[in-house]
């Protein structure tokens, strides 16, 4: 474990490089198609200054947004997937992992860290959708479980930021049991009375939405995020009907009583701090 700052980090991905391109480059919003300075977009927490579209960012950006001076200690940095089933579809699972690691600069689909938010110590886990759709295999389950244990041992609040298509099929039964494992550790955290905020971002579906992402003392979401257990295509095929507009949007899930509130990413850090402070 060591202290990390942005300058010392040597892992960069093509997309990150693009986002951190020098001043003068433009960012085009995929939603409203309007253009703005990359720097301006970044200073607005990677949201559109025109329509407030929340760009799908990853752990690197979230940690920078959350942790004071972008200083944090990352946990379990070396953990990587194995191939317990010898799984192969169009590509072997180890090849897929290796290729994704090379492309993204990430080890797997979640990073965990502890650090300070406005001076308050917290543990945060953040999923990376760019890593096989943010799918949950043994590494994601184990790292989340250990992040929970870290919060428990040190009696500090936990934040989990989910962005996941669900289970990682290539780990089949092992993947399924990560739902059980993470829920087991959260049962202990719950019992100890340590606060857990689950932030659901676009998209959070499948096994992740049916385990830790829905087990927060506070379940909150970014605006417009797609949140649900079953995917819209599966539902449409099952019931043979078109789905209502805004079905499975964060706003829809809030309306139906499964979220505490929706948070604009620009307010995330301060709102988290306020919430955790009120519980002290």
């Amino acid at each position, binding site marked *: 474990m060591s202290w990390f700052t942005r300058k010392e980090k040597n892992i960069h991905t093509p997309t990150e490089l693009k986002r951190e391109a020098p001043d003068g480059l433009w960012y085009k919003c995929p939603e409203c198609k309007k253009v703005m300075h990359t720097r301006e977009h970044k200073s607005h927490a990677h949201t559109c200054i025109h329509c407030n579209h929340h760009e799908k960012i990853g752990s690197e950006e979230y940690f920078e947004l959350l942790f004071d001076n972008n200083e944090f200690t990352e946990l379990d940095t070396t953990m990587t997937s194995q191939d317990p089933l010898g799984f192969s579809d169009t590509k072997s699972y180890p090849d897929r992992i290796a290729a994704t690691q090379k492309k993204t600069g990430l080890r797997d689909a979640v990073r965990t860290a502890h650090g300070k938010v406005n001076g308050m110590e917290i543990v945060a886990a953040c999923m990376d959708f760019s890593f096989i759709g943010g799918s949950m295999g043994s590494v994601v389950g184990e790292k989340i479980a250990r992040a929970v244990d870290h919060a428990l041992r040190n009696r500090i609040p936990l934040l989990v930021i989910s962005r996941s298509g669900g289970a990682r099929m290539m780990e089949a039964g092992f993947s399924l049991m*990560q739902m*059980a494992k993470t829920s087991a550790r959260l049962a202990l955290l719950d019992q100890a009375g340590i606060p857990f905020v689950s932030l659901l971002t676009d998209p959070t579906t*499948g096994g992740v939405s049916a385990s830790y992402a829905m087990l927060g003392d506070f379940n909150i979401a970014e605006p417009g995020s797609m949140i649900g257990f079953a995917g819209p295509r599966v539902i449409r095929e099952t019931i043979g009907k078109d789905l209502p507009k805004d079905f499975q949007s964060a706003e829809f899930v809030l309306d139906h009583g499964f979220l505490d509130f929706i948070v604009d990413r620009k307010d995330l850090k301060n709102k988290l701090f306020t919430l955790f402070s009120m519980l002290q």
Partner: protein
Amino acid sequence: MLLDFEKPIADLEAKLAEMKQQLDVERNEDLRLAVRSFEDNILKLKRETFQNLTRWQRVQLSRHGDRPYTLDYIYSITTQFIELHGDRSVRDDQAMVGGLGTIDGQSVMFIGQQKGRNTKQRQQRNFGMANPEGYRKALRLMKMAEKFGKPVVTFIDTPGAFPGIEAEERGQGEAIARNLREMFMLKVPVICIIIGEGASGGALGIGIGDRVLMLENTWYSVISPESCSSILWRSWDYKEQAAEALKLTAHDMLHFGLIDGIVEEPLGGAHTDPVAMSRIIKNTIISQLTELSAIDPLVRIDQRIEKFSSMGIFQE
């Protein structure tokens, strides 16, 4: 209803029945010997077939139309059973059943997904696919069992939690997630038995137990072979391949340490001898409950948590 690999056996059995009828009439010693050797051959073929089932064939058996379902087992292993309905919030989900039963003189809370046998029943039971209120009903009954100090036995048999508009509106994900967390903290013994299909979160939603057992010809995984095929190969045609890749049988799951044991089925599968199957399940439940009841409740909870916490393969 016959599966393709059951057909040769069934054909021989039909012929055997004919021979036996003839034997009744003729009382011929040669014929008697022929019948006996024919019987041996059938048994040999049966053994060979069932010892060498592919994973996909086990999936087929797990869905066999004649296979006993949750209520069949409950009624055959209990001396009395009172079904309990409703989640006290939305409605009674008939894809998830439960109630108090007496087995070997002790009261047990039984819970499980229920499939239907004909078109009308299948609709009524929603093909064994529970809605959120089904999972909440299950949790209500588990908490009731805990309150009165009665053990919980769940029978898992589902192609998945129902993917529907109302299911999403009422929080399918939240309902399953809550069950996972709450089941870990139940102070009473919990036994989970996969009796047919164990598909994904819909199965796991009643699957956190001190003992998780699978009948021999069942499957348990994160996705069905068909859905896996459609996602990974973009076609429904690779279900056999997907079943092999997913390693979803009872033997696979035991080998990986993801379940605690296998419950043997009568030769030919549970559906060929439901009475024997029920007796085996009953004896299994009784002996497991005896073991589990001897453990201190808090130790039992710790062991339950530790067991699931150790599941996962990774390197660091």
